[in-house]
Every structure is written in structure tokens, then in C-alpha cells.
């Protein structure tokens, strides 16, 4: 499809383009492994830092353009620095290859521990084992891997419980009956199906709740908006929308508002993002299930600290943190993915 650049420079153009591409990817690789996004305490070189502070804790998460991961990384960083560690924060952008490079970098810098929100349940097993074998303990947050006994801890929020919590509030607000739309997350993502199943577990108990549409909007606000507008064209008789994340719920809110339906429709989301909490306060959304991202991150750092100091972990590897329901009644009690 991208033929034009071949046209202009002919063969030499192609060689140049390819070498640029290769060079570019090498450069990003060096950039990310050699110099993590936000190393604190400039002036301390990695080699000498191990002796001076409590050592290095590497925090690796998906892209910070999602406020959830930013909140998680910020919380872990703050806790680690409070406990006297040096930190390096980096993002793998959900690229298993980049994640592997970042873990290599952490190993070569003799990190004391890695706090990881991983880039894939299967693809991350190898890199986590590599770090563990090299003597760097890995504490997983937010997402599990499909193996146990390698990571020191896997602390995830209880998506199933959260989804059931949200669905329960949804059913109650709808008076246990009516037509509803479900917006599902990216269907290749485990969390999308776990949440959808959690919704179904509760809603299926109420025979008067009728699903009129179930669409994936890929976690995306604009896509949720567009699909919701189209669904409204098909059927205006809708009393509720339940979405796999808040971003999609807010997209649905915008579409319902434009169609003049918002005051008749109950909208429930998932995640507890600051924007959703603002919408709940404004009466545009009914509820959301807040994932305590900050709590999981600080807990992981505390357990890492314990392991570094004692060589042991006192908790089970698999830990789940319950989600909390946010409604208009308690919206003021919550901050960025955490209780205030």
C-alpha cells in the first residue's frame, strides 16, 4: 500500500528507507534500555547507586498515555522513593520485545527488584524467568502471567468481582428490567472477556433485562460514541448501557446526550477513572467499579522491600485486590484510582 516512496528514489530510496527504519528501531531500543523514561536523581550513576541508596527498583508498565498506568507507576515510584530506593520508570507500550529489553536493562543495572505490569500473559513468562534466574525478583501488578512459581507476587485487581459489583448497581438502577446495550473492550484482551462474563453472571439472573446490542468498541471513546450512535438508530428503546471501561462509557454518554436520551438511560462503566468520577458527580453516569491501581502498586513495592531486606515473601503469590463501587453518594471519597 505504501508504494510512493519507492517511486521517488527508486532502489536507492528503498535502501535509504529501510536503513532509516532499522536505524530508527535500534535507536529506540538503545534509548529505552540505556536511559529509562524518568530516572530520578540525576548525577547518580547506576553503578554507584546500589551502594548509596537502598538500590534500584525498576518499574515497568504499559504506556502512560492511559492515566491508569500512569497512576500505577507514579504510586510505585513514590512508595519506593519513600522507602529509600532509587527508581527507574519505563513503559513497554504493550510490546513484549520492548519489555524484554527493559528487563535486560534492569538486570544489567543490578536492580534489586522489578515491579512489572506485563505485556502479555504468555509472552512475559520468559522475560520474568530470565530476571528471576539472574537474581532479580519480579513483582507483577494489574495483569497476571500464565505461570506460577516464577514471579514473587502477582497482585491484580479482581476484575470479576468488580464487574459483578458494577452489574449489580446497574441492575438496581434499572429496576431489574429493560433493554440494555453492552460495550465490550478489545476482544483479544483477557480483561474484556472477564468483565463481560462478570456482567453476564449478574444480569442473567434477571429475566426482564434484555440485551439489545453487544458491540466491541476497543476500549476507545470515539469508537464507543460512533457505535452507540448507530445502535440508537437501530433502537431508541434503551434504558441502560454497561461498558467494559469508563472511556467507552463516556463515549456512550456523549452519544446519548446528543440523542437527548441521557436522562432516561443508566450508564455504568469500569476502572474508576477521574473523568468517570467527574461524570458521576455531574449525574451523567450512574456508577463505575474503581480498580485500586495505586494500592496494588504500593503493595507490590512494600513486598519487594520486605523481600530485599529479609529474602522472604510473607504473602501468597496470587493476590487479588477488590474493586470498589463508585456512585454519586461516595464519589467525593475517591482520587486518582485510589481512595483519597
Amino acid at each position: 500500500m505504501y508504494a510512493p516512496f519507492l517511486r521517488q528514489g527508486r532502489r536507492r530510496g528503498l535502501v535509504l528507507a529501510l536503513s532509516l527504519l532499522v536505524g530508527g528501531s535500534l535507536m529506540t531500543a538503545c534509548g529505552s534500555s540505556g536511559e529509562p523514561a524518568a530516572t530520578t536523581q540525576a548525577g547518580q550513576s547506576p553503578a554507584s547507586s546500589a551502594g548509596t541508596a537502598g538500590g534500584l527498583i525498576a518499574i515497568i508498565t504499559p504506556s502512560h498515555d492511559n492515566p491508569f498506568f500512569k497512576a500505577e507507576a507514579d504510586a510505585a515510584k513514590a512508595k519506593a522513593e519513600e522507602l529509600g530506593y532509587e527508581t527507574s520508570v519505563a513503559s513497554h507500550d504493550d510490546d513484549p520485545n520492548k519489555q524484554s529489553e527493559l528487563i535486560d536493562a534492569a538486570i544489567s543495572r543490578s536492580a534489586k527488584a522489578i515491579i512489572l505490569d506485563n505485556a502479555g500473559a504468555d509472552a512475559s513468562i520468559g522475560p520474568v524467568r530470565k530476571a528471576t534466574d539472574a537474581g532479580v525478583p519480579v513483582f507483577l501488578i494489574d495483569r497476571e502471567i500464565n505461570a506460577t512459581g516464577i514471579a514473587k507476587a502477582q497482585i491484580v485487581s479482581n476484575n470479576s468481582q468488580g464487574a459483578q459489583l458494577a452489574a449489580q448497581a446497574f441492575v438496581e438502577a434499572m429496576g431489574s428490567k429493560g433493554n440494555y446495550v453492552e460495550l465490550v473492550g478489545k476482544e483479544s484482551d483477557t480483561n474484556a472477556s472477564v468483565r463481560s462474563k462478570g456482567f453476564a453472571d449478574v444480569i442473567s439472573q434477571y429475566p426482564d433485562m434484555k440485551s439489545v446490542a453487544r458491540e466491541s468498541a476497543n476500549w476507545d471513546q470515539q469508537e464507543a460514541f460512533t457505535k452507540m450512535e448507530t445502535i440508537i438508530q437501530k433502537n431508541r428503546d434503551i434504558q441502560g448501557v454497561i461498558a467494559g471501561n469508563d472511556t467507552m462509557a463516556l463515549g456512550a454518554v456523549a452519544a446519548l446526550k446528543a440523542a437527548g436520551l441521557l436522562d432516561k438511560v443508566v450508564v455504568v462503566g469500569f476502572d474508576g477513572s477521574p473523568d468517570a468520577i467527574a461524570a458521576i458527580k455531574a449525574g451523567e453516569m450512574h456508577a463505575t467499579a474503581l480498580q485500586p491501581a495505586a494500592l496494588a502498586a504500593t503493595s507490590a513495592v512494600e513486598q519487594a522491600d520486605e523481600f530485599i531486606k529479609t529474602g522472604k515473601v510473607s504473602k501468597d503469590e496470587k493476590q487479588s485486590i477488590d474493586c470498589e463501587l463508585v456512585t454519586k453518594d461516595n464519589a467525593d471519597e475517591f482520587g486518582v484510582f485510589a481512595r483519597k
Partner: protein
Amino acid sequence: MTSTSSRPVAETVQPERAAATARRLSLLNVAFELRAFIALAVLIVVFSVLSDSFLTVPNLITMTKHVAINAVIALGMLLVILKGGIDLSVGSIVGLSGVVAGELLGGLNLGFADLIAYPPVWVVIVLCMGVGALVGLVNGILVTRFKVAPFIATLGMLYVARGLALLISNGATYPNLAGDPELGNTGFGLLGSGRPLGLPTSIWIMIALAAVVALLLTKSPFGRWLYATGGNERAAELSGVPIRRVKTVVYVISGACAAIAGLIIASELTSAAPQAGETYELNAIAAVVIGGAALSGGRGTVRGTLVGAFVIGFLADGLVILGVSTFWQILIKGAVIILAVMLDQGQQRLKRRGAAASAVAATRQPDRPHQQ
């Protein structure tokens, strides 16, 4: 669009037979010219049969509103593709423009004297388009002055513009762009949700922009220069076309168009996310290609591009109305794009044969140089 007859001809065919062949092929050509319309008609018929709620006036308006966003980007992309280039940065410009709007509507901290400026909405719109045009200008300069291949230059700017959007917003979404009556910056929402004369604003924007681009291409010297540059850059340069200026201007226009699309999206949602518009460049390219433009440049029309955008948009919305699984939606979209390009290849083969035949049939006329 049918300016291919000036291509050099190597074949020698008997004049009478060639004339007949040319006539026959030109009929086939008409069918091919209409293929995007035919595809659109087929889509509409199929979806109307399968669902009652497809062919209704409100749904057609809603779908056209969805089409408008892609069409606005695709019109800019058309100009770049006519030049023989490509603009991969438009999706990121969509995000950047929304973020800049969010930042400006939330108050522009002037730094000195603790002053926070709240520019009125029209200023915000102009500034956002300016930002899009600026990214386009960088694209243009990279391509013309530094001879970076368009694919690479705009790929680079795809990341730069997205990075800027994330930096400005610090990764967060601007949640409320409604403005404050006291500050006199309300009305941004009208761009997405206003309905002058019964149609959403975005549809009017699409119509106006299409008219402007069509006039530009068919009635202005710039249009002739653009087709000439895309058809044969060297020949255009030798006949006095300011190809550098033409090449730079198309990227500027493309950037501004993408910025408009970003504003529409931010206005519809009354919130702006830095991730908005990811992969939109591909939808725009697809619309242009389905509309019969050649990626090698010099061939393509506004009408075709609009129909291409309608094909993609109606297909997507129709499949949602039918409740087809998301995975099938993606697959079907890909198949339609490939089919369109395959048809295009067939048309090009026919055209070359037709051109060869008619060139032999007609007595050759001396080439007319471009006049300025």
C-alpha cells in the same frame, strides 16, 4: 483524470482496428469509473434488505456524520496522494488538534502577570488548524528541502505529533470542553452537535471542504500543477511548475484538514484525548484508494474520494446495525479495500491498452506546454 493519453506509446497497431478497440475499452472504462458508486449502491441495497433500520433518514444522517470525519481527512490526503506522496501523520494531528483545543479552552497561562487567557472558540479553531498546518509544513519541508521520502517524513511526524499531544496533555484526557459563559468561550460543542438547517455541522463542513477542494483541483492553476507534478514530476518542473511549492502546500492543507477532523471529534465528545485518531491515516488512505486514486500520483478525484469514504463508513455502521462480530467487521473491511485496489489495477491495464489504441488511431497532436 483521463490525462493518461500523453504517455509514450511503443506499440504500433493498425489505425482502424485500434479505433474500434479504443471505443470498446472506453465503455468498459465507464463501468470501472463507476465501480465505487456501484459498490456503495450494493452496500446500501444489501443492508436495507437485511435491516429495517438502515435506510431511514435519521440513520443516513448519522452515518453521513460518521463518514464526514474520515472524508475531511481523506480530502487532504487526496491532495497529497495526487502529488505522489502519502501523509501518515494525519491520525496524530487529529489527536494533537483536540489536545490543543482542550488546552486553550481550559485557559492559556500567559506566564507573566498571573494572567490566564481564555480565547473565544473561533480563535481556538483557527489556532488548532494552524497547528495542523504547521505539522503539515514540517512534512512539506522535510520532503522538499531535505529530500526525505514522504513515507519516512510523515511516519516520523506521526510519532512526533502524537508525542507532542501526550506531552501537552501529560497523557490525560481533557474532560470538559463546554466552556464557561462567564469567560465567553462557550459554543465549542456546536461543531460536533450543532445542526444548522437540520444537518450536523460536520456534514456541512465536509460538503464545503469538498466543494473547495474540487474547485481547487479543476478550476485553479494549482490543480493543474498538482496533477502535472503527480503525473510526471520532471516534466512538470521543466514546464515551469513550481513543484516545491505545490508539494509543500498539499501537506499543509492535509494537516489543516486533519486538525478540523480532530476538532469535530473533540467537540462531539466535549472531551479531548491525546490518543484520538490512532490509525485514522489508514482509513483516509483507504477512502482515497477505493475512490480510484493512484498511489503513484496524478490520478484521483474529489468525487471518488467522497464515495470511498462513504463505502468505508456505511460498511462499518451497517455491520454494527446487523450485529456482526467485531472480528468479521475488521476482516470484511480489509477485503473491500483489496477488492477496490484489484479493480483499480484492472482499470489501469484497460486504460493503457485504450490509450495505446487511441493514440495510434488519432493523428498525433503536438504537446501543449503548460501555461502560467
